[in-house]
């Protein structure tokens, strides 16, 4: 059974898709639109516990390879640590975190919800929102995207482009200059800087083949190479490292940083003049669901509201919370967030990712490129009042993404800063965004003659107060309405910048020299890694591939799918040009709405 309080699922949203081929019909998912199976199968090849991103892609890969898969989740919804949740589901989740249900995976969750949401007479319903626990963006040229296309999972999803990347510098948001056209036509960039920037961009596209340029800097932070070899100025160094490369701090080593910068640049113009996409209706939560669906088509069995109680590697029997059991011929794979009680083998998730997610009663469309509904804002080291050492990344989604109603937006902030100062950095970034937004959109400005400009037809030019213009001295009278604020700390075993190390999956098998830990309920269980703080999906496929190889013995046939609808162009450009055009413009005058109580509800 499912709660009635949930967002429409993929199949429910798109029930009337014209069937171009059998694959484009969105199949129903057990537990959401379809009833759950009454019985548990007697025997499966692989049992997967938790329907997060990695587990779901793995389920699809194994099902299509021919393994029989039983995929369970203890929740009444899909997604687990990658879920897209309604506000009520968030409340429940926060409670679970603070009861210690996810110990070692999440803690320190704090939630503020305005009375405007829910409560029957609230302005917004809980399910108007789809908040991701681990929000991510998708690079146009990436391994996950090619698997989405190959597995036809992209047909269940809708993608939108994100072209605006802003770098916060000197109390200002600077829009990224990254294309040749922008560099060429930029009036402000000095000539030699243009040349150096272009030279670097050309270099980075095939940097591996030019060791003479970067080898001397192989063990030093990239900024040394940028400054000494390419003579770039601080503004460009920051843009390249933090906005284009999405690095976390100044210490990022040359090869890693080059890899990340290339990731952005080589993704540009693959599907259009942008590098990054995101999925509508929710991020990893939506993709997880898509891969589960694909796995179900491939033959996997799904059970929600089901917990793993224990697994015995000698008898190969897995016991479940409802008393049923299954014989597992190959492996049990589990997310640390759904480990059985009395587990002793969960690998240490020693890295912290601090997150702050806000729902704001502002459309924020001035941050978006025309016709889009998303932006990324990066706060480089030292750019914030808090004196941040690590970057704070903010991923902004407007109502065109369908994760929040018109006139609102969702801000996902995160940092890899460890320890308690992380929250100070997040707060400082939030404050900077808030201040900038007020400056840019304040209606008060219209009454201030010194700031207003008039266009040729007498219209007020709001452009003059757009991004990139600082009005430090300006004190606005207005405050931003926060509809929701959620702080939490997430733990992961994946170090910053790395994908999961294959040896990670050996831990459980060689732990104690192959001896089983007496009394542990999870001996022999292979644990996945919790999502890292990486803002893109880049680590996912690597992690799945490694697990797949561990289970199947080789990754030769990993997603080696051959559907009949081969002729169909994968995700053609027109498709989401249409999707983008479908977006309705969001009403700007949200500040004039009756204000809801700022802190309506607080749950610890």
């Amino acid at each position: 059974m499912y709660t009635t309080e949930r967002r429409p699922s993929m199949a429910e949203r798109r029930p009337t898709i014209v069937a171009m081929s059998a694959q484009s019909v969105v199949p129903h998912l057990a537990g959401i639109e379809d009833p759950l199976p009454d019985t548990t199968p007697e025997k499966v090849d692989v049992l997967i516990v938790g329907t997060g991103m990695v587990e779901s892609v793995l389920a699809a890969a194994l099902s299509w390879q021919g393994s029989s898969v039983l995929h369970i989740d203890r929740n009444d919804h899909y997604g687990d640590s990658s879920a897209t949740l309604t506000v009520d589901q968030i409340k429940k989740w926060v409670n679970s975190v603070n009861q210690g249900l996810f110990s070692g995976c999440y803690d320190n969750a704090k939630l503020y919800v305005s009375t405007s949401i829910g409560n029957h007479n609230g302005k917004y319903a809980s399910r108007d929102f789809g908040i991701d626990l681990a929000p991510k963006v998708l690079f146009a040229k990436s391994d996950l995207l090619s698997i989405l296309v190959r597995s036809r999972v992209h047909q269940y999803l809708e993608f939108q482009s994100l072209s605006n990347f802003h770098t916060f510098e000197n109390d200002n948001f600077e829009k990224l200059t990254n294309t040749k056209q922008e560099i060429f036509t930029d009036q402000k960039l000095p000539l030699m800087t243009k040349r150096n920037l272009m030279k670097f961009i050309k270099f980075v596209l095939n940097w591996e083949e030019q060791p003479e340029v970067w080898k001397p800097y192989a063990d030093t932070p990239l900024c040394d190479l940028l400054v000494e070899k390419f003579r770039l100025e601080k503004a460009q160094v920051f843009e390249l490292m933090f906005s284009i490369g999405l690095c976390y701090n100044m210490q990022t080593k040359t090869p890693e940083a080059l890899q990340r910068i290339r990731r952005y640049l080589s993704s540009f113009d693959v599907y259009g003049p942008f590098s990054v996409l995101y999925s509508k209706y929710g991020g990893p939560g939506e993709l997880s669901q898509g891969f589960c669906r694909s796995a179900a088509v491939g033959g996997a069995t799904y059970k929600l509201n089901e917990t793993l109680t224990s697994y015995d590697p000698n008898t190969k029997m897995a016991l479940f919370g409802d008393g049923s059991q299954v014989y597992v011929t190959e492996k049990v794979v589990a997310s640390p967030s759904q480990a059985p009680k009395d587990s002793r083998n969960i690998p240490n998730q020693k890295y912290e990712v601090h997150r702050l997610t806000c729902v704001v009663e502002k459309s924020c469309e001035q941050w978006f490129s025309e016709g889009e509904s998303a932006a990324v804002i990066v706060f480089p080291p030292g750019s914030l009042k808090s004196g941040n050492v690590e970057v704070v990344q903010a991923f902004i989604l407007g109502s065109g993404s369908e994760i929040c109603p018109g006139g609102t937006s969702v801000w996902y902030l995160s940092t890899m800063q460890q320890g308690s100062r992380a929250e100070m950095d997040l707060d400082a970034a939030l404050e900077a965004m808030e201040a900038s937004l007020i400056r840019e959109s304040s209606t008060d400005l219209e009454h201030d003659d010194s700031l207003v400009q008039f266009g040729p037809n007498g219209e007020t030019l709001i452009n003059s107060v757009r991004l990139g213009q600082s009005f430090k001295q300006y004190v606005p009278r207005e405050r931003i309405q926060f509809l929701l604020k959620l702080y939490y700390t997430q733990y992961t075993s994946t170090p910053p910048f790395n994908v999961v190390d294959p040896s990670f999956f050996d831990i459980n098998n060689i732990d104690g020299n192959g001896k089983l830990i007496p009394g542990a309920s999870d001996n022999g269980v292979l644990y996945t890694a919790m999502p890292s703080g990486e803002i893109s999906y880049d680590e996912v496929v690597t992690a799945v591939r490694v697990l797949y190889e561990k289970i199947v013995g080789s990754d030769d046939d990993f997603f080696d799918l051959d559907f009949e609808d081969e002729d169909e162009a994968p995700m053609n450009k027109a498709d989401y040009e249409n999707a983008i055009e479908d977006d309705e413009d969001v009403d700007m005058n949200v500040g004039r709405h009756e204000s809801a109580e700022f802190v309506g509800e607080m749950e610890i």
Partner: protein
Amino acid sequence: MHGVKRKQWTQELLKQKKEQDRKRITQYRGLVDKLLDSRDSKTYNMEVFKETTQLLRINPEYNAGWNYRRDIIEHLSPELKHEFWEDELAFSMALLKDYPKVYWIWNHRKWTLENHIDKSVKIWLRELAIVSKLLQMDPRNFHGWHYRRILVAEIEGRTGQSRDGEELQYAIDNTNKNISNYSAWHQKATLIPKMFEKDEIKDKKKFIQDEFTYITNAIYTDAEDQSVWFYIEWFVKNHIVIDALGRDELIQKLQELQENILAINEDDLQFSGKQNNWCLKVLIVLEDVQRNLKVQFTPHSHEYLAQLIEADPMRKNRYLHLLHRK
């Protein structure tokens, strides 16, 4: 090839494919023979017209087929309605989508427009919008650019109004979008002297000054791009620059450009240990232009040429020729 399913060519499959190909070849040859017979017997009717459609779909490069098709249309033209001409345009457009670089299709499309039953300028304006869209998808298709010039000339002839200003802006927008768009640079080089002659540029002096800034900007953005360098060679040698600036200011602009090119070349040398061949080639041109202007300077062309002979041996004899010219 991208997006094409890989096939295991087993003996059996190969045999099947050969068999299929043989059938297709026989069919095609039959069609050609039949049409040539009809042509020789001067048959002009709708049936043979449809056969040319069939043939040209298989092979749009077959110009005899296009010629015969036009003969048929001319003979039938008194009966042909508006719809026929529109269908004919749709036919060539469909072919262009698959074969954007076949001369005969472009040629036939132009002929269709010229003979269209609708003689108003409307269809030409519509065509201009179509070719803009086409160039947007494939900005460096020189057929498209050439065709665009034909359309513009036609529209100008019919309306009596010059479109040079719009076309220049169109070319600039395209070089802004992509410095490497050789066709757009060429379009500029075609338009600017024409506009100077027709007095369509108000402030000529400022125009040329701005153009110097623009090309300097371009070589700093990408000093490897040959279309910019070609344009510079054309630009500095053209009489419009001296006409607009006068000798003294031109010399000053040339020397500024020279300094910038030297700076870029020096930067390349420091970065990669190699000089930039394009810088050297254009530096030689700049010395030539200054020599013609009777400017006194210490020439370096011989050093540049010696360097080029070593760095660019494929064009050694050209450099030797320049070295030994009088």
